[in-house]
Every structure is written in structure tokens, then in C-alpha cells.
């Protein structure tokens, strides 16, 4: 038999297309901003993770430019060999201060932090308990460990407790609980204080992925500050790619954690370090957050206004507790149609459909932005009302 070495590429792609599971990418022509140019149209963006509109902040841009001038375009190596720059260390010191923790470590991305660190924290003979709706980077990280994984029902403390008891009965050497801080499909929060309390009872380690909480919750410091459990979370993981407006992953916790993490995370050890401009812009983002609290404040004001108006029109906005506001529509086809019509009306909001969510829970997921003005919001709301009525969603 003669092999067709790459035949599967076309076949499997076609399979995705046939099921409408393929991604259709939209292109931004210019910066990511609350009103951005997307495929020739100026639209209100309700689906970026740039919560605080920092990606275009003059101080971040300035810091990036300066770092290019002083340190060049690239870092030249992995951190462990010759790519460890003073900028990286300064950033890590700043992260630790910002998060009120002893130490911090900067990774190339949040995905790299989860995929690199999680499999090192538990191993043979250990148990790791993970929320069923955790992010894919956690799932992938945990696939690399020899520890026993127990997936508990979403935010279900009784379910978590039974899993803890089970791990305890099986005499697990170490137990770790991993949860998203903010769940990105529904915008609900992990019950962090209860999780920490249960963890304490069983001597378990806690790991929170706060990708959607940093810059948003606790005045921007994240879920630990929000719930006042800063010291009880053993590993706070996050990203600079969302509210902070740049790119890169982070972990914060004890010095012991950081020493362990950078000596063992393969994604950190074996992949080139972040370019100087990125590290500098991240630092500037933290600086802006500390000096200009108005961004976080405006994000929450906008969120409250938008949610109230949407619900007033009769939309079902789920049970979100954050600036992620799902607009529940039920059927996938309706969500897709609604998103398409909204785009024609000048609002960019993505449908989230099966298989990302259950078949009868299709929705448009909106993400609020601090940079949207009242006029922008009113315009978006009018479009939702018009299209909602047209498609009989309200």
C-alpha cells in the first residue's frame, strides 16, 4: 500500500467544516480597541479580553518602545541560558508586590504556565482535583502528570469534598485542587473561600487560574484579594494577555514555589523568553493599574449598566458575577444568526455554541470594556434590542 502522508489534513479539516466546527477567523485591521476596524467596518467590540483597554494605553506603548531601544527586539535565548534580562526580574518583583505575595515568576504565556507547572506539582501517588469546566490549558497540563485526576462537578463543593475524601481514603501522598477563578463561559466565580477551607481540612494545595480575574476582581489584584484569601491560595496563576493588555503568564506565591517552578517547568526552561518590549509593557500595565484605579471602576460601571439594560429588555443574562455577560439564546442556530446580524449592525460579539456549551445553552458571550462610553453602550444596546426583536429572542 502506498501511503498518502498528508491526506488526513484535508479530510479532517473537511469533517470539521461539514459539522460547522471549524473556526472562521475575523481580522482586526488596526489596534484592539473598544471600537475597532474589523474587516473594513468600524464596530463596537464586545468580545475581546482587553477588559481595561490597556492594550492601547500610551504608557504601555511608550514602555514597549523604550525597551526596544534599550534592549532590542528579542531576548536571544531561554531564561535558563542567556535570555534572563534585568527587565524580566524587575517585572517579577513588581508582580509579587502587586499581588501581595513573596515571589512571582513570568512565563511566555498563561498556557505555558499551566502546561509547564501543573504536571510538576503532582506526580505518581498524588491526587489532583479539577473543576469540570476548567480551561483547556489546565486539562492539557494535567494530562502530563502521573497523579490521579478526579474531575468534580462545576463549583460543587459537596462533589469536591467527596473527591477529597476519596483521595484521602486512597492515601494520596499530595492532594492539589485546581480551579479557574472566573469561569469564562458563564462568568461565574469559583467559591474560593470554601475551596480553601476544604483544602485546609485535608492538607491540600490550592491552585487558582485567575486569567479572567486579574485586572477585574479585587480592584484588579484578582480573586485572592476579592475574597480576602490571598495567603491561602498556594499558587495564583494568571495572564497578561487579557485585562493587562499585553501577553505572558504569571504565577505568584511563596519563594519556595518560584524556586521550584523555574527549575522544573519545561515550558519555561525550554522556550525562548519574552521579548524586552513585552516585559516592559507588562510592567507598565501593573503601574497603570496601581496609579489609575478609574479603569477597573469604569469596567464595573459599564458592566452594571449593560446588564441592567439587557435584562430590562427581557434578555436572559445567565448567572454571571463578572464583566462576562452571556446572552442566553438556547439554540445554536439562533446564536449564530444573532451574532451575524449584530455584526451587520456594527457590534462584534461572538456566539458560543455546541460543543463549547450544552446544546440548549447556546449564547452570545459579551465581554465588557472599560473604554466604552455611555454612547457606545447605548448604541450596542439599541442593536441588541433591534436584532433581538427581529429574531424573536425577546
Amino acid at each position: 500500500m502506498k501511503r498518502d502522508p498528508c491526506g488526513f489534513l484535508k479530510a479532517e479539516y473537511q469533517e470539521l467544516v461539514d459539522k460547522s466546527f471549524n473556526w472562521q477567523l475575523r481580522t482586526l485591521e488596526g489596534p484592539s480597541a473598544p471600537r475597532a476596524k474589523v474587516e473594513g467596518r468600524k464596530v463596537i467590540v464586545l468580545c475581546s479580553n482587553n477588559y481595561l483597554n490597556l492594550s492601547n494605553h500610551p504608557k504601555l506603548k511608550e514602555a514597549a518602545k523604550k525597551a526596544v531601544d534599550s534592549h532590542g527586539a528579542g531576548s536571544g535565548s531561554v531564561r535558563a541560558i542567556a535570555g534572563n534580562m534585568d527587565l524580566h526580574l524587575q517585572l517579577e518583583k513588581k508582580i509579587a508586590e502587586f499581588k501581595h505575595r513573596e515571589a512571582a515568576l513570568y512565563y511566555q504565556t498563561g498556557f505555558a504556565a499551566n502546561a509547564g507547572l501543573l504536571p510538576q506539582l503532582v506526580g505518581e501517588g498524588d491526587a489532583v482535583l479539577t473543576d469540570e469546566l476548567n480551561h483547556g490549558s489546565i486539562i492539557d497540563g494535567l494530562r502530563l502528570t502521573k497523579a490521579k485526576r478526579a474531575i468534580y462537578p462545576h463549583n460543587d463543593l459537596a462533589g469536591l469534598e467527596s473527591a477529597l475524601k476519596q483521595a484521602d481514603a486512597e492515601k494520596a501522598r499530595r492532594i492539589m485542587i485546581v480551579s479557574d477563578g472566573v469561569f469564562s463561559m458563564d462568568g461565574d466565580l469559583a467559591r474560593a473561600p470554601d475551596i480553601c477551607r476544604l483544602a485546609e481540612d485535608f492538607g491540600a494545595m490550592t491552585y487558582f487560574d485567575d486569567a479572567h480575574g486579574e485586572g477585574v476582581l479585587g480592584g484588579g489584584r484578582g480573586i485572592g484579594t476579592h475574597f480576602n484569601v490571598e495567603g491561602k491560595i498556594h499558587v495564583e496563576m494568571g495572564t497578561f494577555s487579557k485585562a493587562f493588555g499585553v501577553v505572558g503568564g504569571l504565577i505568584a506565591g511563596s519563594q519556595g514555589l518560584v524556586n521550584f517552578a523555574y527549575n522544573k517547568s519545561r515550558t519555561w526552561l525550554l522556550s525562548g523568553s519574552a521579548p524586552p518590549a513585552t516585559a516592559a509593557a507588562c510592567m507598565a500595565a501593573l503601574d497603570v493599574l496601581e496609579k489609575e484605579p478609574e479603569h477597573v471602576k469604569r469596567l464595573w460601571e459599564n458592566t452594571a449598566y449593560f446588564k441592567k439594560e439587557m435584562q430590562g429588555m427581557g434578555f436572559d443574562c445567565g448567572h454571571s458575577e463578572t464583566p462576562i455577560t452571556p446572552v442566553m439564546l438556547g439554540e445554536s442556530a439562533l446564536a449564530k444568526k444573532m451574532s451575524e446580524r449584530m455584526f451587520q449592525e456594527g457590534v462584534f460579539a461572538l456566539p458560543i455554541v455546541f460543543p463549547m456549551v450544552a446544546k440548549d445553552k447556546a449564547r452570545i458571550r459579551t465581554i465588557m470594556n472599560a473604554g466604552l462610553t455611555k454612547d457606545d453602550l447605548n448604541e450596542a444596546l439599541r442593536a441588541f434590542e433591534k436584532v433581538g426583536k427581529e429574531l424573536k429572542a425577546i
Partner: protein
Amino acid sequence: MVEKENGKRIVALVVNPIAGMGGKVALKGTDGVAEEAVKRGATPIAHSKALHFLSKLKELGILDRFEWRTAAGEMGEGALRECGAISTVSYSPQKRQTTSEDTQNASKSFLSGGCALVIFVGGDGTARDVHSAVNNKVPILGIPSGVKMHSGVFAVSPEAAAELMADWLGGKAGAQEGELIDLDEELYRKGEWKVMNFGLALTLFEPSYVQLGKEMYEAASHEDVLDGIADHVIEALAKTPDALVIMGPGSTVEFIGKKMGFEKTLLGVDCALGRKLVAKDADEKTILSLLGKHPKAKVIVSPIGSQGFIFGRGNLQLSSAVMRLIDLQDIIIVATPAKLASTPDIRVDFDDQEVVDKFNRKKYIPIVAGYHSSVMRKIG
């Protein structure tokens, strides 16, 4: 909708008196083997399922919101009378031992009297009989009492059927098509799995919620996932090498059995000791006697997709009497993430409430879904 001036809805009830009798005696279904089942010591269960259903209607206060049509004696009239409901008998079977024609003829008689829904107590075979007579003119609703209930026209329990009726009265449940599935019973009893789809039947539908989570992004192939599950189970069993291993039906357990080196039957309950098969397609009696000699035992089962039953459907040999002897710690439940995605809750069904409670008290139960990977699911 057929509704009387007094506001009552006309509905019909037909009971297949011998449905479900094959299970405990390791016959798969009672089509054409009722006598054999009785000989092997089977007792009727359909009547009590009908009573559970009617009592629940009474408890919900809606039993007399319906005008009942039924068939004589054990085919429905008896159960209705026991629950104090007034009914009109529109069909009487010729002989004491009822057959599939009786179910069909009774169903036909309901239609000519004009009714809005036909409720039946039985299994997949009964569903087919009712459907062939009713032919989608009105919806049908199954109260599970058979050995095989794969069709999409069954409520998950007699009580759930009653609740569905309440939703129907309240306008919250409507008619929708469900698949009619049955196995070739002749082949099934020989251990061959030949599922046939007998088309779509109208049934009452309660909107169900299926949360998939993100595990579905797992790229592993079905075979790899099964392999992982099997490795996990084999590793767990190795800790108690002298335990009796009782393996339930289904392709997941079959795969595990094969990996352990057995010719596991697809649909039967097989038992092994020290890596050697000691009983193939065992009935309740055989299992009990093995347990008498080897009280230390492990049970491996897999839930029925979407309905979520781990006991009480398709494995009636693993009866309350058997399960009373088994510690919950010694039950290993296995399922692929794909199956779990469409199976929100895990359930059990036993004729002994004490055994049911033993499971329900646990509230959550781990299901092995891969090598060293388990999913905590609600039970009950």
C-alpha cells in the same frame, strides 16, 4: 388534543404483565420465552411498576385529572382499580398468558375510543407493539419495566413518568419524536448485539440538560480511552488478587474483560477468580452462590448512556440480594468521557428501597473515565 368537556384528558394505560421477568434469570427479554422465565423462578414486576406510577400521580393530585382507558385484568385494569381510579376497559385478552398481539390490539382499541396519550408498562418490545398500533397518531410514554429499555420513549422511572404527566398537564412538556430501538432477542440471548432502529415514535418530552464541559477537547481516540480505562481497572484489581470479579454487560466492560484475557460476553454478567473465568452469563442464583464462597468481591459496571443507570437496567442479575452483599467501595464504575458527556446523572433501580438508599446516601460516586482519571458524578 382530546379533552372532555369536564376538562379531563383521555389517556390509556396498557401493562405487559410479563415484561422484565427475564432479567434476574439471565434471559435477555421475555419475547417468546415467558414460560422458560417462570420456570427459572422469575416473578412479575410490571404490575408493581404500574402501581408506583399511579401512586405518584395520586400523590401529585392529578390521578383524576385523566379519564382512563385500559385493558382487562393484569393488563392495566387491576392496577388502576387498586389505586382507586375509574377506568373504561376497551379490550380483554383471550388467554391468561398475554402476548404481543394483545398489547397491539389493546392499543388499537384505545385509539378508536379517542385518546390523547398511550402509557405502557414494559420494555423495548412492548414499545414496538404499542407503536405499531398507535402509529404516531398520538404520543406514547413508556414506564420502564423491561430488561432492555434503549428506546427514547421511556421515562427514567415510574415516578418520573408521573412528573412528566404533570408537566404535560401544565403545558411544560410536549410531544417529540424519540427513537424506537430494540435488539434481536434471539441473537441477544446468544450474546450477540444487534440493535435495530424501528423508526421514530411520538413521545412526551421533558427538556433535558446536557453539559459537556471541556473534556471533549481531549483528542485521544476511543480505543486509547478504553485502553486507559482498562489499565486503570486492571491496576486497581491487582491490589486484591483473590477477589471475585463480577463484570456487568456492555462494550466498555467487555473491552476490559478482553484486556484481562477473558472472552467476556457482551451482554451477560461474567465472573472471574484469579484471572480465570468461573461463570459466563451468570444468573442471580449463580452470582449469589459464588459470593457465598468468595465474599470478597469487586463489581465492574458501566452506566447506560444518557439514562445513567448502573444497576436495574440490562443487568437485573445484579439484584438487590446481590448488591446487599457488596460494599460500595468495591464497585468500579467505568465510562468513556464521550458517554459521560451525554449522561448527566448516575442512577440505580432496585426493588429494595434499602439498597437504593445505600447508593443515594453516597450522593457522589467516582466514575473511571481514563487511566488515573475519574469523574465525580451525582448519584440518585
